[in-house]
């Protein structure tokens, strides 16, 4: 075993793929989410002989974060990877964005990874943290709250990279349009238009994001820290 790897937002499309990638790479996956579907995610991993522990926890609460730490201790393995993947959207144009929707996104997408990292980094003797940001951190119409949270996560990545070096490396991944349940809910016409603006001509697959995360958690990326890697099919270049 390469140690324990925490994956938050483990029941979502990208989260599931990351759990599988890290499980196949030899980590004991501590899969964290709020929803009951988590059990089936872990059952699928275990059916393939991969080591995983489900943790239903609300990462906004102190108790929820403590439960995650206890679950890592329960594996008997050192924590060597932390993937801050959990995130939500509450989209609206800035002039229509409510205080509640602003606060909810900032809490889940930024406060939770900040507090979780603050609690766990001192326990890590070595390893890698990967924060799942978004291409939206470059600016995204109708996503003032989401873009701010994902930009904040980039800032957290840079500061932690400096603080945790040399023992722990910290990087961010910023996915563009990925084929998850969330993006499949976009109206077909709008989705086609979005895909048309991607030079590679398609949505990304969650496994492609997971492969990048696997790389960042491996020795193959041993000289990388403090970076933001956009995985978006070239969308950041096209009109």
């Amino acid at each position: 075993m390469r140690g324990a790897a925490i994956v938050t937002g483990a029941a979502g499309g990208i989260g599931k793929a990351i759990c599988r990638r890290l499980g196949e790479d030899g980590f004991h996956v501590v899969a964290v989410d709020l929803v009951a579907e988590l059990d089936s995610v872990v059952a699928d991993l275990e059916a393939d002989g991969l080591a995983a522990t489900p943790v239903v926890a609300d990462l906004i609460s102190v108790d929820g974060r403590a439960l995650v730490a206890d679950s890592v201790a329960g594996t008997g393995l050192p924590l060597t990877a932390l993937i801050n993947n959990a995130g939500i959207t509450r989209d609206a144009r800035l002039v229509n964005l409510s205080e509640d929707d602003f606060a909810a996104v900032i809490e889940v997408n930024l406060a939770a990874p900040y507090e979780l990292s603050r609690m766990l980094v001192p326990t890590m003797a070595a390893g890698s943290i990967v924060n799942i940001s978004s291409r939206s951190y470059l600016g995204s119409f109708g996503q003032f709250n989401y873009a701010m949270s994902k930009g904040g996560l980039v800032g957290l990545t840079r500061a932690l990279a400096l603080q945790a070096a040399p023992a722990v490396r910290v990087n961010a991944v910023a996915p563009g349009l990925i084929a998850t349940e969330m993006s499949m809910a976009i109206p077909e016409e709008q989705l086609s238009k979005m895909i048309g603006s991607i030079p590679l001509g398609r949505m990304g697959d969650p496994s492609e994001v997971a492969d990048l995360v696997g790389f960042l958690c491996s020795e193959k990326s041993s000289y990388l820290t403090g970076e933001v890697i956009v995985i978006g099919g070239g969308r950041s270049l096209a009109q």
Partner: protein
Amino acid sequence: MLIRCHRQELAAALASAGMPDAGLVFVASDQPGGWAGVGEELAEAFRLTKEAAALPAPVVYVVSNDDLLGRRGPEQAMVACGLLSAARTAALELAKARVPVNTLAIESGTDPTVLAGWTRALLEPDAPTGELVRLGTGHLGKALP
């Protein structure tokens, strides 16, 4: 013009720089403290920017170069980088109205009158939008935020 600035020397220079009547200048706090402070800082930026967007009026966020690169710790970095992404998003939303939204990054030794001059320029109707202007030389050869 609304100037939100907790640093006296910068606030004085900004107030005397002949700013346009309407707009927002939001100078990020140097020491937001723990999460509570970060959350309050981002929430205040949201509320004030929403008010400016409703007019619509131009916006300049002022952050630290060091914080964009995470040099002074996670709290300051989350605020600075969060504001930069928020400015890019607000710029997109106000582009049709031709109202600029920009970010200005300064160093500890930046002359307040220089900051005020650049701020005023970035609030002008013909200013660029969605841009990051970094004063000083500490960013040269370093990461592009």
